[in-house]
Structure formats: C-alpha cells, structure tokens
C-alpha cells in the first residue's frame, strides 16, 4: 500500500557478519506483515533479521547518523536463526504531546511533520549486537544495516487524533470524540472511513465491520475533502457510542458503490494492520485501599495461522522445544496503569502469591530477557517470542511469565535526548529493576498453572524397563457371560520401571508405587495354520503386538501388562463379557502380587507394595476395546472393587450383543470413567467406526467423566498391533481409502495420545490433556490429520438435542432457539447409522443446519444458567454433511461463533481452517461412503472477552452461530465447559 518512490538512502558501511558463513540479511516489514523495501516517514519501523545464530540473544539498536539511539529490542533468534519481526520504532517516533490523554509517554515527535523533517535530515541504521546480559547495547557488533528511508513520505497517512488534531494512540471510553486524520489523499476526494476491530493482518475480501454506531452497529463516516485539499480530520466515533477495545482504521477513496456488507479491497488504505492502531480503555477502577492488586493476565500462547480473529491463541501448556510466544491483551490492564516505555519479558520458575511477596526477584530461564519498547500511550507490545526452545530439566515443570514494566522512571537515566528515544539502559547495566512489582508488572496465573512445559509423551521416559511374563495354563473358568469359557489360559507379557533394563530385574526404587495398565488385543487368528488350537510354537502372539507401547509406558512409570486372550479369540462369537472378565482376572492376580500377605511363587515378592492399584487403566483394541467397556461395567455392576480409573478404546467394536450377569441384552455404557477412543477413518475391518457410538454413550448425565476421541484420517484397524501387520505372522494392513498414513505414524498416534491419556488420569498430570484438547501437537503427528472430540465432565449442556419430544425451537436449558432467515434445512435428527442421509456413525442426536444465504442460529440462555464464569470454554461438536454441492460447497467450512451478554456486549470468534479448528468434509470410505463424523470445537471464553469487549461472563444471554454463503452442517452438544 505504501508506494516507494524517491528514496533517500544514506548508507552506512555494513559490518561483515560476525557469525561466519552467510552474512545476516535484513528485511523491513510493512503494516500488512509483508516485506517492504523502504521505511516511509511516519510508519512504524519493523525489522526481521535472518542468518543469525539460533537461540542466541541479540540487541537490535536503531540509531541515527549522530549515534543517537531511537529504538531498540532484545530478542533471541529462533531455531532458524531469525529475529523478528520486531518493532524498533513506533510510528517513526511520533508520540504527540499526550498520546493517551493522561500524560503518559509524550516525549517523541509532536507530529508527523516533525518526524518527516528529522528523517529528511538524518540517516538510520540498525545494529545487531550480541546481547550483554548486564548492559544493553554494549555487546559485540555482529552486523549493521542502513535503513532505506523515504522522507518526506509519498503515501497517504492516517492517524487517530483528538478534537484538536493531536496525535493519540488511546482514549478512555466515553470521555471525548475520537477523530481520524489523514494526509496525502487525492485532492478533493470523497473519503469513507471505517473504524474496525483490530486484526493482525488483512486480506482482500475480509469483512469491513465498522463499529462506531449505536450499540456497535456499523456507521461509517463519509468525508468530503475541499477542492484542492489533500488532508482531513473528522470525528468518527462519538463518546456516547464508544466501547473499549482495539481498533484499526480503513479508508476508501472515491467509492461510488454501496454495499451492506463491505469487504476489504485492493486499494483501500489501512492504518495499523500489524500493530493495533487505537486502544480504547475502560474507565479506571477505583484504587483499592489495600494498595495495588496483582495484574494477573493470560500471556502465553501461539500465533494462529490465519487472519481471522483472534490472531493469537492463548495456551499455557507447551511441548519441550516448541516456541512460547506471549501477547498482552490491553483489556487486562487498567486505564490508570502508568504505561511505561519498556517491557522486559521474564519466564521464571512458578511461585504462588506468598512466594512472590517474599521473593520478588526475577530470574529468567529462557535464552534472554526480551526487551521491547511499548507503544506510547498504550501497553501494546505485539506478539513476542518469549522462549525459543524451552528445554527445562523436568517434565511438566511450571513457570510464570512476567512482563516487567518499569514502574519508577526516576530510577533510570533520562533518555538520550533524541525525540522518540526511549531510555533503554544505563551505563551500570541496570536496564530494569528485575523485581516483580504488583500492580505494575503483568503476571500470568499468580496462583494457577502459569506456563507448563511438557515432554512429548512419545519420547522414552526416565525409567529403565524391566520385562517379565507369566503363563498359567487352563487357570481360569470364566464365571460370567453367555459362553463362560472354562480352562482359559492366564498369560501376559509385562513391562515395568526397573532398576536396570532386562528380564526380571528388580523394580525401580524401594517403595514407589506405579500405576497399572492392562491391555487386551482383539479378535484375530490365534494359530499360524488358521486353526483354533495349536501348540505354543504355532501360536500367533497377538498380545505382543503392543510391546512398543508397553516399553514406552514402563519408561514413564507404569506397570504395563498385555494379556493374551488365546482361548477366547478367533473361533467364536463376540465374548465381550468374557474378555472383560479375563482382564479383571489378571488384575486379581496382580492384586495378590502386590500384597505381601499373599505368598508369591511367581515373582518371589518382586512387586510387593509396588503397584498403585488405586490408579488402574484398562485398554483394549478392537473387540478388546469393547471388552474394556465390559470390564468397567462388570466391575461397577458387581461391585468388584477394582479402581479402574481410566479406559482406552483402540478401534473398538460396539456389538452390544453380550449378555451381562443378570441377563441382557446390554448396551455398554462407560460411566464415571475417563475414556479415550482412538480410531481410523481407513479402518477396513470395523468399517463403521463403531467406537464413535461407545464414545457418544460414555459419561451420561449423572455419571460423567471426561472423554476424548481421536478420529485419525488414513489410519487402519490393524496397525496399532505390530503382530497384526507382520507378514511373518500372516499379518497385513486392512486399510482402505485415500490419504493412508504409515504404520509408524499410526503407532505414533498411540505413543502420543494414549500415553498422554494415562499420564493425565493415572499420574495426575492434567496438563497432558492438552494433546486431547487439540492445544499442543507432537512433532510426530505432522501430516497426521486428527479430528478430536473432547468433553469435560465439568460442563453445562446448552443443547444436547436429546429432549423428547423433539423441539428444535427450544434448547436443553429451556431457552428459545431460532434461525434467521429460515434455513434451507433446520431439523433435529438422529445421527445413528441409517439416520438422515445415512452418513452418520454415532449414537446421539443433533441439529442439521443447511443454508444458502447468510444465516444466524441463536440459542438463548435462560437466566438461571447465564453465569458461565466458572467455565473456560464454549464448545460444540460439528461435522460437515456432504450433499454433492447442493448446499455444501465442499472444502473446509467456516462459521462465526458469538456470545452476547445481558447488556448487549458481544464478541465473535471465527471457526475455520486457520483458527481453532477445521470443519472438514467427511472422510470418503470406499466401502461405507462419506462419514459425517462429529468433532469438537472448543473456543476459550477468554477469546470472547479480550480486547475489552466488555462481554460479562456472568450474564451470557445467547450463543449465536453465523454462517455465510452456503453450507450444510451437523451440530451436537453445545456446552459451556472446562
């Protein structure tokens, strides 16, 4: 947008790269986030430097030709050796007299003319120096670069101002009118001014939603420039209509068309894409008599990949070696904050409030304490890479992120005297006070989780692995089920944390107890010759197909047992009760082996008091998965007393033909047990992905527990068991369809997702649920298309669409439901096999919404349920329904989700490919057709309150889903949840 002509370039002699190899290269970054050739006077100067040493910390100094320091940043290079984009100079040093109207930060250029004048007379350069931890800017020079400058500027310029045309960056809501000023426009032009919610980058086609009318409605301003005039200053937002938030301005020149839904066009003038243009703050709170309170804010997260709001996704769990970025939401900072000029970003070992009071010293654990200049008159910093390569010593170590603002300007030396120059340091190196100052510094989750760094659970854990097995022939007569098989072998292989690796080595430590995992394979040939009985030499060791998991689990501190179901496998009907019974029988053995009072002739007491039998996980593959459901149900119904605290189902069946003790038939329902179901779209055996039905039924009302489901595109049935795909054991893949993943990738899904589930529920490491909530992703899962469903037990169902009689106009809370205009399809339907278009595989009912024009779906929240502040997310399940392009155009679909409070405050979040979740076209299975498989979309409620939206989570009155153009979606389980 900013056209570069007539460059004024004053060259400095470039310093050779000090790092060896290719010289570092510099790039100027424009307001739209793109690389530009020239810095125009008045623009924010943002640079990116490539070719630096990964993870090394650098000081970036913006200097003029007199050596005066104009701007700065301290940052670590990322793993690719890149620093930036880093803002070094906000709007070319223009601050006006009083950028926030409260006397904070107005020590730069008075106006843009002054900045142009300065830049026309002075050259700029950027120095890159190795960071000296004690003295900013004094490290060894690595390289420098002359900044191409254009002054006076040639592009139009837009800025915010008060009624006196004074430059402003922020306002207090409701005090005074907000003006937009411009220069360099076509003489006598007609100028349309759109004041729009802030976003990080803009693309042609993005909606222009002016927000300056009554109650946030669009009300663009049209300004007629006088003949010959190229400048304007016009009020665009009356005080009475203002609301807090962050905003950009878009100007369209000489537009004769009109549109009720304007979109960003090529040729539009944009002020502040990459940075926030204007911050409107709420009125400051009354000062507490007890003094300043902590500024607890959400800081850590990652950039979202697209341009939809929000551009930053907040999260507090990260995988080791994955970048931690931070972003400060101005909503979190009260308007009476002193808005200092410098912020330092510390990541420090987590402390609670009391510990912080006693020990406020900040000790950073990252590559460097990042330093940034704060945009004058605001607390805006942009998105900053705070920890390039987190690699703490422990797994699950917790940290606090602190934005250390200077709270006492007098403690530091004055600025260099150059207008626009912040005071980054002193000769003594006391750049910052290095203390946490309540009320001034921002800190994440003072007594909460803060920031947690976890290891990839697929990486071998800290324990050496011992191995053993046992084999009791004909030892068990199954007492339950339709078949009650007699003389069943009790045989298993075992991996456990050991003092040394090898067979039958001692258990690790002396008195540690380890959680127990029991896994059972599914139906498969048991003999190489295809028969039903055979000698040990010809048996297919189905239970050894999970050795890769057993070893991993043992290395992470689990005693892992894989059961051989030889006698109840391969040659008869279902036997789910019997499968569950066999798993429970193994657990009975282990209960004895843990008990010193029971003589142990098998292991000679090796496991006495070493099992944590209060944390037992049951896992099963295929029919073994349904066997797990049976085991959990038997244990509960018969009050057997085992503590099966978590279940994992791997491509399970869901026959529901078994007959439990007391008669049947039965439909297995996993109750009170956190359950994870993993299954593949390319399953060529359980072709209907029956596990989806087990998942849907699990955790019914009153018996809730968390449940998770991973639907993995391209995964087959067999590859989770290495024996089942081994040609030496007559194995092979059953997979069908396109987009197949490799057996290695499929087994990695087990390593990552199942192990993290055990860690969460058997070891109390709730942070590992970040994998299941689609918050973090293992590098092993690159290229593996996984679609998640996750439902927390702590939730309120706004609409589960299960009420009878069916009433699409009322949700589960009794609130009114509407859709306008009347959609092409608007019905509640079963999502079970055969329902609607036959594409569903679920055991639930939901809503089908099809539209051919912009449509909104509203679900009202009755008064008794409007306080959702105890929850952290709004969630729903959604799937595309493929109707050969009648309504569904194909490709990923996009909806906006909005919540609104009793005062009418509202905020929308986009759900699409590039933020939060994809809603893909269902997988096309060659034998069953397209599968409309629901997946969860979980949107942090924080996203609805950020940028000072004023949305009050204690008074939420409605959820609104907005759909554009045309589409056909299935919805279920609209919840407020955790």
């Amino acid at each position: 947008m900013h056209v570069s002509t007539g460059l004024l370039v004053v060259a400095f002699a470039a310093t050779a790269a000090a790092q060896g190899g290719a010289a570092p290269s510099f790039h100027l970054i424009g307001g739209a986030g793109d690389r530009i050739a020239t810095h125009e006077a008045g623009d924010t100067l943002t640079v990116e430097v490539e070719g630096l040493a990964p993870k090394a910390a650098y000081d970036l100094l913006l200097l003029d030709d007199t050596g005066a320091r104009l701007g700065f940043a301290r940052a670590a290079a990322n793993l690719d050796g890149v620093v930036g984009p880093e803002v070094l100079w906000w709007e070319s040093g223009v601050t006006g007299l009083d950028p926030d109207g409260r006397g904070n930060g107005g020590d730069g250029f008075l106006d843009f003319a002054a900045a142009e004048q300065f830049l026309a007379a002075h050259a700029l350069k950027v120095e890159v120096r190795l960071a000296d931890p004690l003295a900013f800017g004094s490290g060894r020079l690595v390289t420098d670069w002359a900044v191409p400058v254009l002054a006076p500027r040639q592009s139009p310029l837009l800025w915010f101002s008060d009624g006196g045309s004074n430059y402003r960056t922020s306002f207090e809501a409701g005090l005074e009118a907000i003006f937009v000023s411009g220069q360099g426009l076509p003489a006598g032009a007609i100028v349309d001014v759109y004041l729009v919610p802030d976003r990080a980058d803009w693309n042609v086609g993005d909606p222009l939603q002016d927000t300056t009318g009554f109650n946030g409605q669009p009300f663009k301003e049209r300004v007629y420039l006088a003949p010959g005039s190229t400048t304007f200053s016009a009020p665009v937002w009356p005080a009475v209509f203002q609301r807090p938030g962050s905003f950009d301005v878009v100007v369209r020149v000489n537009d004769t068309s009109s549109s009720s839904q304007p979109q960003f066009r090529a040729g539009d003038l944009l002020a502040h894409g990459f940075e926030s243009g204007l911050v409107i703050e709420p009125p400051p709170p009354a000062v507490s008599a007890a003094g300043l309170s902590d500024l607890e804010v959400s800081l850590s997260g990652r950039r979202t990949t697209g341009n939809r709001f929000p551009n930053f996704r907040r999260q507090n769990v990260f995988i080791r070696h994955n970048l931690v970025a931070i972003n400060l939401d101005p909503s979190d900072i009260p308007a009476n904050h002193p808005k200092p000029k410098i912020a330092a970003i510390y990541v420090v070992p987590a402390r609670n409030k009391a510990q912080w009071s006693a020990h406020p010293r900040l000790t950073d654990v990252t590559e460097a304490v990042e330093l940034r200049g704060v945009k004058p008159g605001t607390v805006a910093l942009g998105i900053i890479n705070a920890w390039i390569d987190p690699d703490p010593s422990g797994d699950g170590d917790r940290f606090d992120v602190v934005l250390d603002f200077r709270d006492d300007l007098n403690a530091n030396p004055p600025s260099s005297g150059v207008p626009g120059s912040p005071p980054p340091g002193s000769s003594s190196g006391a750049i910052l006070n290095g203390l946490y100052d309540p009320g001034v510094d921002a800190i994440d989750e003072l007594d909460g989780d803060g920031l947690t760094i976890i290891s990839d659970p697929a990486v071998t854990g800290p324990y050496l692995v011992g191995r053993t097995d046992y084999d009791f022939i004909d030892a068990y007569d199954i007492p339950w089920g339709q078949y009650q098989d007699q003389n069943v072998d009790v045989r298993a292989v075992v991996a456990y944390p050991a003092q040394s690796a090898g067979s039958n080595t001692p258990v690790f430590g002396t008195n540690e107890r380890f959680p127990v995992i029991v896994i059972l394979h599914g139906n498969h040939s048991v003999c190489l010759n295809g028969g039903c009985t055979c000698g040990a030499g010809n048996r297919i060791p189905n239970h050894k197909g999970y050795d890769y998991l057993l070893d991993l689990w043992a290395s992470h501190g689990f005693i892992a047992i894989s059961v051989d179901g030889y006698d109840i496998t391969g040659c008869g009907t279902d036997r789910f009760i019997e499968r569950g019974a066999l798993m429970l029988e193994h657990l009975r053995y282990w209960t004895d082996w843990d008990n010193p009072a029971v003589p142990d002739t098998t292991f000679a007491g090796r496991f006495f008091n070493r099992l944590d039998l209060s944390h037992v996980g049951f896992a099963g593959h295929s029919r073994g998965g349904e066997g797990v459901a049976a085991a959990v149900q038997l244990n509960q119904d018969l009050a057997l007393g085992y503590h099966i605290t978590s279940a994992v189902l791997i491509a399970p069946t869901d026959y529901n033909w078994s007959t439990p003790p007391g008669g049947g038939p039965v439909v297995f329902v996993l109750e009170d047990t956190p359950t994870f179901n993993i299954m593949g779209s390319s399953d060529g055996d359980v072709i209907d992905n029956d596990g989806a039905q087990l998942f849907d039924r699990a955790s019914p009302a009153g018996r809730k527990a968390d449940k998770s489901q991973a639907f993995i595109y391209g995964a087959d049935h067999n590859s989770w068991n290495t024996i089942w795909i081994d040609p030496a054991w007559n194995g092979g893949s059953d997979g069908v369809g396109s987009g197949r993943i490799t057996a290695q990738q499929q087994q990695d899904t087990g390593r990552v997702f199942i192990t993290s589930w055990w860690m969460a529920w058997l070891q109390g490491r709730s942070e590992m649920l970040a994998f299941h909530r689609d918050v973090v992703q293992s590098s092993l899962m690159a290229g593996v298309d996984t679609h998640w469903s996750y439902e927390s037990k702590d939730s309120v169902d706004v609409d589960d669409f299960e009420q009878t009689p069916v009433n699409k106009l009322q949700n589960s809370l009794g609130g009114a439901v509407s859709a306008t205009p009347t959609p092409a399809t608007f019905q509640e339907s079963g999502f079970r096999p055969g329902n609607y278009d036959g594409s569903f595989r679920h055991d639930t009912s939901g809503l089908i919404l099809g539209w051919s024009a912009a449509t909104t779906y509203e679900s009202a929240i009755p008064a008794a349920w409007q306080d959702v502040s105890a929850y952290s997310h709004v969630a729903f399940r959604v799937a595309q329904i493929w109707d050969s392009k009648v309504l569904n155009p194909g490709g990923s679909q996009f909806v906006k989700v909005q919540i609104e409070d009793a005062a009418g405050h509202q905020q929308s979040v986009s759900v699409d490919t590039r933020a939060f979740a994809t809603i893909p076209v269902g997988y096309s299975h060659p034998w069953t057709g397209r599968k409309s498989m629901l997946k969860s979309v979980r949107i942090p409620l924080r996203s609805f309150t950020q940028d000072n939206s004023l949305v009050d989570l204690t008074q939420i009155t409605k959820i609104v889903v907005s759909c554009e153009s045309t589409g056909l979606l299935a919805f279920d389980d609209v919840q407020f949840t955790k």
Partner: protein
Amino acid sequence: MNLKNLRLAAAAALLVAAASAQETPAPLPSIEYGRLTITGYELREARLNPPFRTWTDGKETLHQYAFKVVITGSRFPIRALDPILWIGDTPVRNYERAAYADGDALLFCVTDPALLRAERDLTVIYGTDERTRTRLIERLDPERLVKLPAAERLAAGLPELEGVTLTAVGADGRVTGQGRIDGGRIALAARLDDGKLQPLVKEITLDATGKFAVAVGPLPARATHVVALLVRGEMPAAGVELAALPKEVEVLDSKPIRRGPAGR
C-alpha cells in the same frame, strides 16, 4: 557369456534388486475382505457342551441341544466383525469356527426350530460389511437335517422341525405330503407360469403321523407348481405374486406338477 559369467550376472542382478528393495520398502500386504467362498451348508442336530445360554427378560435358559447350520467354504476371515448367518430376515449370531475338509466351517447355533423353514434364504455377512455379503445358492431345506440318534433325541425331547414337505403333486390334482407345525394352518395354492398364486385349499389337516393326502380337483391350466403355505391370517387372494406374500403367509414347500409318466 559362459555359464559362470551368467551366474555372476544373475547374482549381481539379485544384489541390485535387493538394494532397490531396501531403498523402496515394499508396501504392506493388504487384507482383502470380499465375497465369501461358500461351498454349501449342512443342517444338524447337536448336543451342546457346555450348554448355550440365552436370556429372555432376564431369565436364563440353558440349551443342551440345538440345531447347527454349518456353512462350509474356505478362507473365512477372522476379524473384529463376526460373521452373521441370516436365515430369511432373522440374524443368527452365535457361531463357532472349525476346520472342515480342506477349508473352514462356520457352525451357527439355532435354538428356535421355527427359524428352520424350507425355502428360506441363507446369507452370510460380516457385521454390516456389505463387501462380504454372500447369499447361498441353496435355500434352506429341513429335509437335510441330520438327526441325533433316536434314543438321544427322545431323551432330550428334541422337537421335530416345523414345516411341510410335499411328497407328490399329480396333474390330476392329487397332492400328498407330511410335516408339522405349531401354529397357523397349512394351505395349498397353485403357482402359475407368471409367478402368481391361485388358492387351492384353505386348510389341510394332518393325520396322527403328520401326513396328508388331498384331491384339489383340476389344476389351473397355467399352473406349474403346487405350493404349501403356512397361513397365520387371511388366505392370500388369487393373483398375489409369490414374491409379494404378506408377512402372515409363509412358503413351506413348493413342488412341480408331475404331468407326464413317472421317470420320463
């Protein structure tokens, strides 16, 4: 090239091939689940050891004896989904696998003799996997029942299979047969050459030995078969298609009309 060189070249080619194989791993073998290879079926009475349990309204029944429909063939896959035998529109799920001749057998256990009616379709399918749906060419024929020794049958109180077999159908309208039913009534109808039925006798009475002989009068000129029907409601009207009988009417047996001298 002499023989020695030829061998060396062959060895070199093998080495190259082996090296190529290492560089490009062979794809995993794929398991094909398609139509089943079924060679036939057998129908047996069987003693169950251990007994087979069923529950009705929570009440357990132990079955010491049952009928087994033995589906024979080869390479019945062992997979997560069970094979299901559909007798008509009723699924039979309980089965065992066994070796049979050079192939496999699936032995489906039937405890309700009413299922084993003549002329019913037999279809095997794994779960809902339509790839495997395989319909037997033969229909169920209770006459093929292999019975246990009479003494054992008597001791066990094994029921006779319900059904009727037409033993003779003469062109003069004389029809004989035998059978047993526990409910409803037996009727006779003529099947015409266009597949439609024309009622002949509304109800047949079996004698004490389960046999009957009736003279139905002149058969319609276009009649090709006589059909025995089990009727639990209204007798179907003339002109009903055999393939479109109402649910309360079931075909028990069908026999072509013998119009020429025997043995022709």
